[in-house]
């Protein structure tokens, strides 16, 4: 006996949702990413004005001075919609979890020289707060930004920052054998130690910016563009060379994450700058303004992190960032 399934062709009525078809062609099958991110955001016929933003609509293009004919002309090269995002992160999480378990089991961080432990705590712990602030900025972009592509990306990007801040916390707890003292000291340093104050000050100034796209540039492009190469690449290498190579494993997420981030920030800058000279000028002026400010703010951290050459390493990160942004078309 055999089971025979005779398949009759089931004719479809249409290929696509209308809102996707209008963008990619009605006969072209849509990807899950396209279905999930295009044109979900309301655009018109709002019933009541927001009580928290006078003269604005609930969703309003005027929340930034950047002008786009179409806020959906940028797409994420990673094509992250929710599921693709959590699947990617779950995979990374699994390998990070193994790294942490191994480090804990073999007491790999405890065998580091005390001096190195002290340095790691001093440099990394306050970065939890930087990550948390970065998250708030991304939640703000999700809240006030325009178009479901950029806002969903900011939402996921912000969630990553919570994850990173928790990974940093876990490293510190591992060094401190689950005592909270290091985390507490990190908070005190962040609030009071002079080396962190210029950065904290800059961050609070970014919190109160009116223009969400300026927040995008200051936070996700400039601040991260200086801190990540400096700390999660250069500093971790230095720590590693001094007997702390376990830290490379425990910050794997952060370094991979930054490489990934560059892909979409490059694309975003390229698309928005190409739209008009006015956009390009605005973006360029923000990049110049915030690079100058944040370079100064990160300098004391760079000097503390490296026994020598901290300033040069920061300069290197800055030049790399500016060169990369110039390559995307910015006039800087």
């Amino acid at each position, binding site marked *: 006996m055999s089971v025979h399934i005779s398949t009759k062709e089931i004719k479809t009525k249409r290929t696509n*949702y209308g809102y996707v078809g209008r963008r990619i062609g009605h006969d072209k099958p849509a990807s899950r990413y396209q*279905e999930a991110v295009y044109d979900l955001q309301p655009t018109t016929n709002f019933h009541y004005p927001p009580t928290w933003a006078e003269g604005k609509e609930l969703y309003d293009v005027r929340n930034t001075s950047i002008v786009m004919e179409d806020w959906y002309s940028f797409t994420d090269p990673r094509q992250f919609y929710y599921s693709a995002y959590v699947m990617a992160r779950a995979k990374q999480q699994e390998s990070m979890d193994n790294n942490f378990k191994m480090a804990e089991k073999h007491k790999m961080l405890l065998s580091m020289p005390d001096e190195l432990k002290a340095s790691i705590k001093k440099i990394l712990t306050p970065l939890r707060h930087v990550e948390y602030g970065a998250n708030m900025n991304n939640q703000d972009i999700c809240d006030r930004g325009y178009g479901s592509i950029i806002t969903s990306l900011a939402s996921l990007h912000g*969630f990553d920052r919570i994850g990173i801040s928790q990974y940093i916390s876990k490293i510190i707890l591992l060094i401190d054998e689950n005592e909270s003292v290091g*985390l507490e000291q990190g908070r005190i340093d962040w609030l009071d130690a002079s080396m962190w104050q210029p950065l904290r000050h800059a961050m609070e100034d970014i919190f*109160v910016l009116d223009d969400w796209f300026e927040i995008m540039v200051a936070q996700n492009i400039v601040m991260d563009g200086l801190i990540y190469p400096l700390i999660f690449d250069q500093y971790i290498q230095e720590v590693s060379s001094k007997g702390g190579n376990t830290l490379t494993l425990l910050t794997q997420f952060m370094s991979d994450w930054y490489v990934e981030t560059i892909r979409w920030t490059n694309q975003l800058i390229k698309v928005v700058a190409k739209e008009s000279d006015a956009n390009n000028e605005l973006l360029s002026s923000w990049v110049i303004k915030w690079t100058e400010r944040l370079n100064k703010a990160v300098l004391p951290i760079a000097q503390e992190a490296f026994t020598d050459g901290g300033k040069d390493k920061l300069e290197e990160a800055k030049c790399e960032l500016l060169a990369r942004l110039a390559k995307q078309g910015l006039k800087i």
Partner: protein
Amino acid sequence: MAKKLNMRKRYELLTRGLGWEPTYQPKEKVFPQESYEGIKIVDWDKWEDPFRLTAEAYWKYQAEKDKKLYAIIDSFAQNNGHLNLTNASYINALKIFIQGVSPLEYGAHRGFANLARQFSGEGAQIACQMQSIDELRHVQTQIHTLSHYNKHFTGLHDPFHMHDRVWYLSVPKSYFDDARSAGPFEFMTSISFAFEYILTNLLFVPFMSGAAHNGDMATVTFGFSAQSDESRHMTLGLEIIKFIVEQHEDNLEIVQGWIDKHFWRAYRVLGLVSAMQDYMLPDSPMSWKEAWDIYFVDNCGALFKDLGRYGLRMPKFHEQATEESEHLSHQIYTVLYQFSHAAAFQTEVPSKEKMDWLSEKYPNTFDKYYRPRWEMYAQMEKEGKRYFNAGLPQVCQTCQVPMCFTDISKGNPMELSYRVSEFNGDKFHTCSDGCKSIFDHEPEKYAHAWIPPHQIFQGNCGGAEMPDVLKYYHFNEDDSGEYKGSADDNSWKAAHHNSNDDNDIKESA
């Protein structure tokens, strides 16, 4: 040996202390929305985390959920699972769902991002942020699940465009705009508590069970999968209410006012669900009235008994909602029936079996008030005069549901309920005491609502004629009207007629 940390302590160490205490910028500038509603928060540290999921645990569990969900979505599409439904008329419920509910999920995603930024306590911020990305999940999994149906049926093709424009969708849209345009604490009371905690079970549980009953395994799967997030959201809703009320005695009255308002607003939106549940599911596992008794009367009774010690009481007009529960679905579906020539779904007179089921579930009302009406419509249809209401409905200025409710609580179930308020010399009509009381409290807000029939009259919806308006809505010709003989009905019958011959699984020796 390192000391062992339990979940509570561990979560606390990973998250607490991250909240921002600005010193370079004034706190009111960094968190500008935290105080203008009059809510007084003395100490955010008193916040009890409703669930203690770390980012890592979140990624892990959510990925696992989605892996299962998408496997089912894929196999559903590959196997043309839509052919296994009880009947294609069932799809009409899904149309209302994706047009009316999915866009709200998106709105919630943005709204909770606002709270995650605007609250200054990290416990609440992180909980809201988690809900924000959950809501993104919900809208996207709904789109992906229903994508296959869109390829085969009418009315599912442009939900987000429609949500911004179509007359009956202004019911859910105006509710959400109402909450979104308010401050963060009111938004949270509205969405997390009034909607998620008090009413969401009425939307998802019976509806998803209904999907299972009608062979729609794809929708069941996304529904149950979303519900597991929803349980977290409900718990957050309960936590926030207790937290606010415990923070300062002045908060109680404000919060009670919001509960009253948003319970009624959200309840009116769910009127659409009652019609879906009782009339649009070919096979209903549970009536609206039964669901109301379990999920509102019992469940919220217990909830407010618990909240009584905080000084909170049941929402105003809840008695009227309960009294209406034997009438609601019949009245709403009648409107949908009468106006479905201007809707992106189709309706029909309930079948004989359906009417018998309704008689059984609504012994006090169906045969007395509603069966005669359906029999009259059936008769008209038989005579070739299927009834459609050619005019534009007058809608309630608050909830924007067409005026179809009757004065049940005043003992007049056959008399249209009508309330009038005056504001700035104009008259405004509302459908009920609940809606009038909301209007009267903030007349300047509701007087300026985007009322679809008015907008159509003013020519703001594509033009003066009905075809212009339907074009503005992006409706196709086969989206609307009577179900029997519709494109969906015909293609369904064609597919199932053939299937008797050659589409079945055959055993051959």
